[in-house]
């Protein structure tokens, strides 16, 4: 019963891991990594949702009748692009923050900000 939906369990576990990293880690890069994992879990969720019993990957080919639902794949392609853009922007921000604050640790940045005020 529990294992029957193993794909969802994987999604949930990944999601929790990603979320935990975002929340618990002070390192900006790690947060971005966590965020990526978090997003990826959703991608997996969509893709696993698209699976149809007996269906194969939705790449058109001769002699194949049954495909998985291609729509989620298409959607997630877009979402992946968005995810990459987010990650890239996040990393770029981290680099700029490092240049400006000399650190990528949340706590140190917060301390420096407090000193500024």
């Amino acid at each position, binding site marked *: 019963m529990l294992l029957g939906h193993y794909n969802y369990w994987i999604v949930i576990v990944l999601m929790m891991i990603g979320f935990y990293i975002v929340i618990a880690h002070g*390192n900006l*890069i790690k947060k971005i990594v966590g965020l990526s994992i978090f997003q990826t879990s959703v991608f997996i969720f969509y893709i696993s949702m698209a699976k149809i019993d007996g269906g*194969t*990957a939705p*790449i058109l*080919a001769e002699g194949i009748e049954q495909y998985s639902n291609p729509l989620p794949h298409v959607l997630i392609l877009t979402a992946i692009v968005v995810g990459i853009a987010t990650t890239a922007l996040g*990393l770029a921000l*981290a*680099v700029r923050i*490092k240049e400006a604050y000399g*650190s*990528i*640790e949340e706590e140190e940045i917060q301390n420096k900000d407090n000193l500024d005020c």
Partner: protein
Amino acid sequence: MLIAALIAIFVVMIMAITRAILGPTLYDRILAVNMFGTKTVLLISILGFIMGRPEFLDIAIVYALINFISVIGVLRYSDNLIFKDSEQQKK
């Protein structure tokens, strides 16, 4: 035999993951993850054959390229600034 190769690659991937978790240095981890990536390319190729979908090879190609870019990307930063403090100190 395809199945055997698949299993072998699977095992290697697990080994790579193990190394990635064990570390101990950041470079060990990148090395392991990179290896994991290249093995994924093989995995996809073999899976395509097993499932009778040679179209998967396209994915394998794209994956190989992305894998390369991501490793270079990560290293570009490691060469500069970011990883030095946090990781090296812990070592």
